[in-house]
């Protein structure tokens, strides 16, 4: 943590500006090998994804809402690794897909299990359309809601309410297919962008 102190030359008042310039994600023990070729450090193989306490508490909370959810959601998210899907927890669980320079948040999952799908702005609407249409087809009772700037997925049977994580977990093959569509769309768009440079 950096605590920088600044001063106003006119008034002499001083301000502390906190920031986080550097942060480790996890520390693992390594094997130090010294031989004729020099020194090398190799980390032991790990099969577990490093988690934060915030993340653990988020999943614990979901587990309390409906037992079995945490493991099922972790398994589902980890199975999307090949589609360049990452997730990160702060107050919500943010699911992010990355293709080239493009980053899209297909889902943002709240601690109560509800899922926001409208965290996308800035010209991403058409990019998302095939994904949302396919996702709507995969989840019974879901439909695509369109505004001039955004697309999102809602449920007809919840008075236009949000999807839930159980809608997704209950229809995993269809949701994965929709995410595959999104990745293909993003990859094509990223390629076009590269060609245009």
């Amino acid at each position, binding site marked *: 943590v*950096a605590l920088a102190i600044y001063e106003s030359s006119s008034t002499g008042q001083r301000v502390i500006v906190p920031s986080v310039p550097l942060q480790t994600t996890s520390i693992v023990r390594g094997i130090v090998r010294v031989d004729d070729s020099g020194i090398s450090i190799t980390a032991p193989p790990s099969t577990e994804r490093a988690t934060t306490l915030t993340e653990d508490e988020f999943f614990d909370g979901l587990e309390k809402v409906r037992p079995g959810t945490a493991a099922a959601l972790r398994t589902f998210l980890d199975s999307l690794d090949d589609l360049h899907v990452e997730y990160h927890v702060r107050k919500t669980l943010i699911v992010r897909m990355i293709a080239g320079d493009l980053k899209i948040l297909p889902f943002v999952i709240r601690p109560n299990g509800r899922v926001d799908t409208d965290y996308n702005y800035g010209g991403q609407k058409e990019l998302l359309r095939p994904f949302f249409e396919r996702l709507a087809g995969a989840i019974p009772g879901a439909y695509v809601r369109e505004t001039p700037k955004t697309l999102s997925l809602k449920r007809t049977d919840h008075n236009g309410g949000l999807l839930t994580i159980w809608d997704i977990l209950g229809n995993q093959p269809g949701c994965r297919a929709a995410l595959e569509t999104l990745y293909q769309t993003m990859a094509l768009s990223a390629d076009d962008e590269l060609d245009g440079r």
Partner: protein
Amino acid sequence: MKQLRQKAPLLLDPGREGEATVLKQIPLGKKDASGYDEKWLQTLVASQPQVLPIQDIELAFTPAVFVCMELPVGSNFLDVLLATPQGKLIAVECKLWRNPEAKRKVIAQAIDYGAGLQALTYEQLQKAIQVACGNHHFSLYQHVVEEAGEPEPSLTEAEFTDAVSKNLRTGRSLLLIVGDGYHEEAETMSGFYSSTRARTSRSRSWR
């Protein structure tokens, strides 16, 4: 002196639209006319822990309240110990980057504190805090409950003790190095740790 990678904040005067004063950074160093040295930094964190942007690092470690300064951990003394009402511990080491020690030792020192805390039981931790505070009746639970100012404690004393014990045993604490900027050598070391990990499991760090 190496250039600190901090952008300068602006001071806006609502009465003068379009005008702004660029604030000038004051370097921290040995106690000079500015009065800002490592001790000052330590006291600032102890008296105003909210100055630390913990919510940007690990939300689970908020709200953090001050517990003590100069906590004996192993053969060293931790600058500042903070704790949350949920029994999570935050170890803070204050370092000025112009301090030569900061260049190589600070990350290793922070890891040492983490290992030192992991070796403690709840009773040993409380005893160490009592030594640091000079108060042999100090109760960590009572202190954290009072300082957090919550209408009702979120955990009972037994639950809090269990939570602290578990976090000590599993080494789940937040280690913060607080300084006046960051040094490229520290970045290199941190980069080494991250790349070591990246070979074994995909990094999901988004910053």
